[in-house]
């Protein structure tokens, strides 16, 4: 019994150490001279070895010992740290893990022998000490030969073959025969092994008993492992406790008993804290998934003869355990794909003018109430034409459908089941079951996958997981009697309008504005938006400002807006829960949460609020209004994110970015003529093209160009593309709008941006001239 305890402790300790080892080894390869690192690795292995002897685990001890010998030479500088050396050492670590897991599940060391790895370690040492002829090689030359060939697969299958032989005859004698057997033969032995292998020695009952005894032996990387089911149960129980507490508090308030009140108050606080703590137990940093990647990438790169540098950013980003589990496999797959297919061999990279080392970036962060995970490489990129061809070839889509696809849509074909563009099927990827599974898994947890790729420059994938389940910081605000949560991610600042110092909300027509540092900030009233102002009669255009008004400045898309709330409460970490299907249509809410007191509060979807308030929908009309405002106001100050472009040569035009739907590049040869207009097939519809140069009657840009940079504007029903010469930049501009010279249509005025005069296009007018009816449409 006591032995069990020691063994358990040993396992936990060893796993902890080994978890670190993978990363340390990979690091060691980069910093070969890092003595401290070697010493740390040495200590871990040494500890394992030492305890082994104490517990009577000879096989484990011998492997650890072998590794220790090599490491001690490296530490003492008698042996250089080479990639080959590290590979063998990693193999030894794997072997140690294998033995440990066997001990964990079966309670004893595995029956098989580990001569091959021992041999490799020995060879490493003997090679170094210059006395190749001595001892080891004479005993088992096969080990050396194999190593020279460098066939790793043969190595592992040999190990398995060993096991099979072992299972049949408990003596280790036929080992030599097995190793010398040709590959195909050892393969057949391997298959027979699977039937013999499991617990051949022990009786069924015995092993079962050991299993149940050792169930508690499950060890953990950092602390302890808890069944998620148990955490769920805890969470539910805490929920019940909260409800009971609420009832208790209510009772106490009625009773008016000071003694009870004090106790109840304490219980109140403890319950809240408990709830908080239990919720957080489910959160884990994404590092838990990522920490396996350095080794994975290293091994893959090695086998493929590539050099890959893995950069991880935001590893501390916390995710709910369930989500973490769900994204583990998809992420692993994507990383594998990147190394296997994405990043090129050093030679090829050099030929393409890139550094020999491929970059693989992992990035995780919270944004807009979502968790974003980006995986980007600077490798091959995806050949869209090839994807299209493959998809047609395999009959997944029709050629006609493909011809109508935008680049983006075509890229998405890669997510179709059965499509793989890998020329050759490797053992890691290219079997055509990859990306569709990735997408399915991500979508199962309500996430999305987006892919962008540029041929020859790399591929990047962005996974967005909704904050469902996740804990986010949020600001609690009140409107009417209700409380709402606003995700901090979309919060820019809080403004208190103090009438005494001259602050006020100004009204133009039906729209409200607040002057925030000289800029007009459009204002929405949360209570009006949600129709919470019952019984107050008709809407007052000018709000009564007897007391201070709180404005929450929020960011929706490109521009900020202010949301007037009745009160700003505290900021809280909230657990986001999805709304039921019946309420999914309400774009104003992103979900709901349970507050400390057990009440349910709705979480505002800032984008949805802006839309509901008319900020995003009628973009065109909205900006027009602000344009008029600013001139009326006399200040003439414009503050916009503008997209700068040229129509021909050196001229400069600008359009507010908020009006722009997308930026596209079209092939000139895809432009067709219909009813005397230029038209292009775009996203399953027809997109009329407006040539800005023709409208403004200026010189046509180079007619020979292949690509037409186009700004797409979207109206209620139709889209219009504005063909320009060049897209220059996107700028945050704050400058005075000078009225246009009389007679110049399509231009709202001139701005000075970055020291250059820029014409602000009146895009509605421009489009109206070509597409009559646009203005009405945009304004509806």
């Amino acid at each position: 019994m006591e032995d069990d305890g020691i063994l358990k402790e040993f396992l936990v300790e060893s796993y902890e150490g080994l978890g670190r080892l993978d990363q340390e080894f990979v690091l060691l390869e980069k910093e070969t001279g890092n003595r401290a690192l070697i010493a740390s690795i040495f200590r871990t292995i040494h500890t394992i070895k030492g305890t082994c002897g104490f517990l009577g685990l000879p096989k484990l001890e011998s492997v650890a010992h072998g590794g220790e010998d090599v490491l001690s030479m490296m530490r003492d500088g008698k042996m250089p740290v080479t990639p080959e050396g590290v590979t063998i050492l990693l193999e030894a670590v794997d072997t140690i893990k294998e033995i440990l897991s066997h001990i964990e599940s079966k309670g004893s060391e595995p029956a098989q022998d580990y001569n091959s790895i021992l041999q490799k370690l020995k060879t490493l040492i003997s090679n170094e000490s210059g006395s190749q002829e001595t001892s080891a090689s004479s005993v088992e030359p096969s080990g050396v030969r194999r190593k020279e060939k460098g066939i790793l697969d043969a190595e592992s299958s040999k190990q398995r073959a060993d096991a099979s032989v072992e299972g049949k005859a408990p003596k280790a004698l036929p080992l030599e025969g097995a190793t010398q057997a040709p590959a195909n033969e050892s393969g057949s032995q391997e298959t027979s092994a699977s039937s013999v292998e499991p617990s051949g020695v022990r009786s069924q009952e015995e092993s079962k008993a050991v299993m149940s005894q050792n169930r508690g032996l499950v060890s953990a990387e950092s602390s302890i492992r808890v069944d998620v089911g148990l955490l769920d149960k805890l969470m539910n129980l805490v929920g019940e406790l909260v409800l009971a507490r609420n009832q208790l508090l209510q009772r106490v308030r009625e009773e008016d008993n000071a003694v009870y009140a004090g106790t109840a108050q304490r219980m109140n606080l403890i319950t809240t804290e408990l709830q908080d703590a239990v919720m957080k137990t489910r959160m884990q940093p994404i590092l838990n998934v990522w920490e396996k990647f350095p080794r994975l990438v290293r091994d893959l790169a090695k086998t493929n003869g590539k050099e890959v540098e893995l950069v991880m950013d935001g590893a501390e980003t916390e995710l709910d355990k369930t989500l973490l589990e769900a994204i583990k496999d998809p992420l692993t797959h994507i990383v594998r794909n990147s190394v296997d297919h994405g990043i090129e061999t050093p030679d090829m990279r050099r030929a393409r003018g890139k550094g020999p080392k491929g970059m693989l970036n992992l990035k995780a962060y919270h944004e807009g109430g979502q968790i974003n995970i980006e995986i980007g490489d600077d490798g091959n990129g995806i050949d869209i034409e090839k994807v299209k061809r493959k998809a047609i070839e395999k009959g997944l889509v029709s050629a006609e459908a493909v011809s109508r696809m935008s680049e983006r849509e075509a890229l998405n074909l890669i997510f179709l089941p059965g499509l793989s563009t890998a020329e050759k099927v490797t053992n890691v990827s290219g079997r055509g079951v990859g990306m569709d599974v990735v997408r399915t898994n991500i979508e199962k947890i309500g996430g999305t996958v987006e892919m962008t790729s540029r041929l020859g420059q790399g591929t990047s994938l962005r996974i967005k997981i909704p904050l469902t389940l996740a804990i986010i910081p949020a600001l609690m605000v009140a409107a009417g009697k209700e409380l709402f949560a606003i995700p901090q991610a979309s919060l820019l600042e809080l403004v208190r309008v103090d009438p005494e110092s001259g602050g006020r909300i100004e009204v133009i027509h039906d729209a409200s504005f607040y002057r925030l540092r000289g800029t007009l900030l459009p204002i929405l009233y949360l209570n009006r938006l949600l129709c919470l102002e019952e019984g107050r009669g008709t809407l007052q255009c000018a709000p009564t400002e007897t007391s201070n008004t709180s404005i929450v400045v929020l960011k929706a898309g490109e521009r900020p807006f202010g949301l007037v709330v009745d009160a700003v409460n505290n900021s809280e970490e909230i657990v986001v829960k999805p709304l039921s299907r019946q309420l999914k249509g309400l774009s104003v809410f992103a979900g709901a949460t349970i507050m400390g007191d057990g009440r349910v509060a709705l979480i505002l979807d800032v984008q949805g609020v802006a839309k509901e308030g008319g900020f995003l929908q009628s973009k065109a009309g909205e900006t027009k209004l602000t344009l008029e405002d600013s001139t009326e106001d006399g200040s003439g100050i414009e503050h916009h994110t503008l997209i700068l472009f040229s129509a021909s040569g050196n001229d400069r035009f600008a359009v507010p970015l908020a009006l722009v739907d997308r930026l596209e590049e079209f092939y000139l040869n895809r432009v067709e003529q219909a009813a005397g207009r230029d038209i292009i097939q775009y996203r399953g519809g027809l997109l009329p093209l407006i040539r800005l140069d023709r409208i403004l009657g200026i010189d046509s840009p180079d007619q020979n160009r292949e690509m037409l940079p186009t700004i797409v504007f979207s109206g209620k029903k139709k889209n219009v593309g504005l063909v320009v010469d060049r897209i220059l930049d996107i700028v945050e501009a704050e400058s005075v709008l000078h009225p246009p010279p009389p007679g110049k249509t399509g231009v709202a005025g001139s701005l000075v941006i970055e020291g250059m005069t820029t014409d602000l296009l009146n895009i509605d007018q421009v489009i109206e001239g070509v597409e009559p009816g646009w203005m009405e449409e945009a304004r509806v």
Partner: protein
Amino acid sequence: MSLQSSDKQIKHISRGEDRRQSDLGPIGGFEKRSATADRRHENNRQYATFFLDDHFLGVEVEKVQEILNVQDMTRVPLAPPVIAGLINLRGHIVTAIDLRTRLGFPSRPPGLWTKSLVVLTMDGPVDLLVDQIGDVIEVLPDLFESAPETLDEQFGSVIDGVYKLKERLLLALNIDSIVQVAG
């Protein structure tokens, strides 16, 4: 929503098939019925019943998770009137549907609503506000008749049919269509 949802759906689909089979019972011929006579007992269905504006309604008992007193509820602005609000059910947020509004009954006189029924749907639990809870009763499939065509459409679409009990009619609600409320 959750990883389990697909399993649940499968379960429900198979349940749906069961129901369809038993629905066929009374419509089918005489012989068919006698052939199933010995299985009749196990075909009996149990309904959790409740009252709503003088109507007697029931939900298959295995779809009822629990019965609650009506508690504090968070209103959902801009939601259709059918949505009464959100409740905190031991840490789960459950949408409450005002069954009176859903079925087109006159809205509840103030102070009357007392109970609610948490039912399991394909998308998780949903709370149904009712006037009063009745007993769990067992009904014979023979007494079943599919919804009369003369029923108004809003009503007819959400009930599976009617059990002609001796004392009164029991309207068997179809939970999955009840919760089909456009958001």
